[in-house]
């Protein structure tokens, strides 16, 4: 029983990262059909902003030493900032471009951000221990669970609730949900496109910052590629969750996290290195079963 509980928490904490990532990608995809490959680099960028640029091995904190009450909003704002900036400087100028062009532009942008960080900080991982108080255990139902996992899961739930409230209760939220489903129709009802898109980028960037924090608290390191693997999984979660469905993206994020942990648990040792192959094969199977995704909106059309 305690083992099951532990596995459940493992799955939930990994799934949390994927779910937040998927949400960030789904928000942008929803409003402008952009598969934003720069998202992973927003994650790294928001964390590296805490560090003083140096290629030396030692980490020089730039803003990392400030109390969490300042640090957390700072990282989240940086994420939002870089995301909004990329919309204004790049994506706004590509409104009429097709999805392939948009995607490659986002890749190019991510490439620029990554190489910029590489030049300023080198590829050596930077250690930074923020929120060290989380390195403890708590007992839940007889199982000893790392506090960090509990906090990650709890923070994810809080973020999801806050975002749901925003989307359900506010005018902006309503417009964003409508825009995610059918952007053109929303505009024909007077929804201002640029504002909604900008807002989507801002929230997406904030989520990137939050993921960055979750990763850095978990790993204690900032690494140029820290956002990459989360972003790839999140991207897949967005699609198998059902395009245009934010809810589907979140559920799919948790499902992939769960599948990954489950594979790690049940696969025999010799097969464990092939874990990702099984997970991705499962993705293909799901897509064949439900090409529109698990939770495709009821009026979803194939638009890409």
């Amino acid at each position, binding site marked *: 029983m305690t083992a099951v509980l532990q596995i459940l928490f493992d799955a939930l904490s990994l799934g949390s990262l994927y779910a937040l990532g998927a949400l960030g990608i789904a928000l942008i995809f929803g409003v402008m059909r952009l598969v934003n490959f720069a998202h992973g680099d927003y994650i790294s960028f928001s964390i590296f902003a805490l560090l003083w640029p140096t290629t030396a091995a030692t980490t020089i904190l730039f803003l990392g030493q400030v109390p969490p009450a300042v640090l957390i909003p700072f990282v989240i704002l940086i994420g939002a900032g870089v995301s909004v900036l990329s919309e204004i400087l790049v994506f706004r100028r590509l409104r009429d471009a097709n999805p392939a062009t948009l995607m490659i532009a986002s890749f190019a942008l991510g490439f620029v951000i990554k190489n910029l960080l590489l030049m300023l900080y080198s590829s050596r991982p930077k250690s930074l221990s923020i929120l060290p108080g989380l390195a403890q255990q708590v007992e839940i139902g007889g199982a000893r669970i790392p506090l960090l996992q509990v906090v990650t899961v709890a923070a994810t739930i809080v973020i999801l609730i806050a975002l749901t409230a925003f989307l359900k209760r506010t*005018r902006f939220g*309503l*417009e964003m*949900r*409508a825009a995610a*489903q*059918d952007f*053109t*129709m*929303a*505009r*024909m*009802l*007077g*929804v*201002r*496109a640029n504002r909604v898109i900008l807002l989507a980028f801002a929230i997406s960037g904030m989520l990137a910052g939050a993921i960055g924090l979750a990763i850095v608290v978990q790993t204690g390191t900032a690494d140029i590629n820290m956002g990459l693997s989360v972003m790839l999984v999140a991207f897949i979660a967005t699609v198998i969750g059902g395009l*245009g*469905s934010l809810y589907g993206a979140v559920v799919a994020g948790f499902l992939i996290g769960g599948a990954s942990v489950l594979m790690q648990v049940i696969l025999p040792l010799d097969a464990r290195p092939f874990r990702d192959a099984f997970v991705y094969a499962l993705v293909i199977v799901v897509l064949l079963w439900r090409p529109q995704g698990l939770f495709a*909106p*009821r*009026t*979803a059309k194939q638009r890409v």
Partner: protein
Amino acid sequence: MTLLAVEGLSVRYGQLTALRDASLMLDEGETLFVTGPNGAGKSTLMKAIAGVVRPAAGCIRLGGRDITGEAPETIARLGFSMVPEGRQVFGELTVDENLRLGAGMRGDRAGAARDLESVFESFPMLKERRDGAAGLLSGGQQQMLVIARALMTRPRLVAIDEPSLGLAPLVIDQVYELLLRLRAERRLTLLVVEQSSTRATMTGGRMMLLRSGRVVLEGDARELNASGAVERAYFGYSDAEEPA
């Protein structure tokens, strides 16, 4: 007073010309039917007015203001409310949210709330289902919803693209009944696209016939139909090439 004026409008998709040199005028309080066979350019014309597609040539004026090439939201905010073909409800949103979205660009919350009540009066069915997902409504109910949603924007002009598409004849009757009633009650200016001219004849109003991207016929719906000009123009007999 002329509310909508379209002059020499052409739209191209790549190398395909979907609309060629189309013109139309619509006075306030008037009803205009645009008909024509599949692929004649009817929907393209609507989309061009709504700002969804960019015209290659020509000019569109709404209430005297040039709106050619403006963004859809700007045009909507100027009072052009479009009900596109295929009913485009936001299926994930509730009925209530769909309607509120329509009222979104209006500053007056109180007015919007009043309108919501009046819409619910006109569409009691929507009131019953107001918290249900719009995607779960039947086709006819969805059509009612999008019309109601269009009304929520307090439009000067409502454009409806193929309201009868995919609906059972009985439901189509209901939809038109409603449109007629609204026209009477609210003095709406209507721009309706239909494939067949039957409805236009029944409803009455001006009619325009498009074929292969050109306006080939224009006039009073009932008169045109009685003269048999519609039939000839529709199927492309040469004597109908000249606008009557």
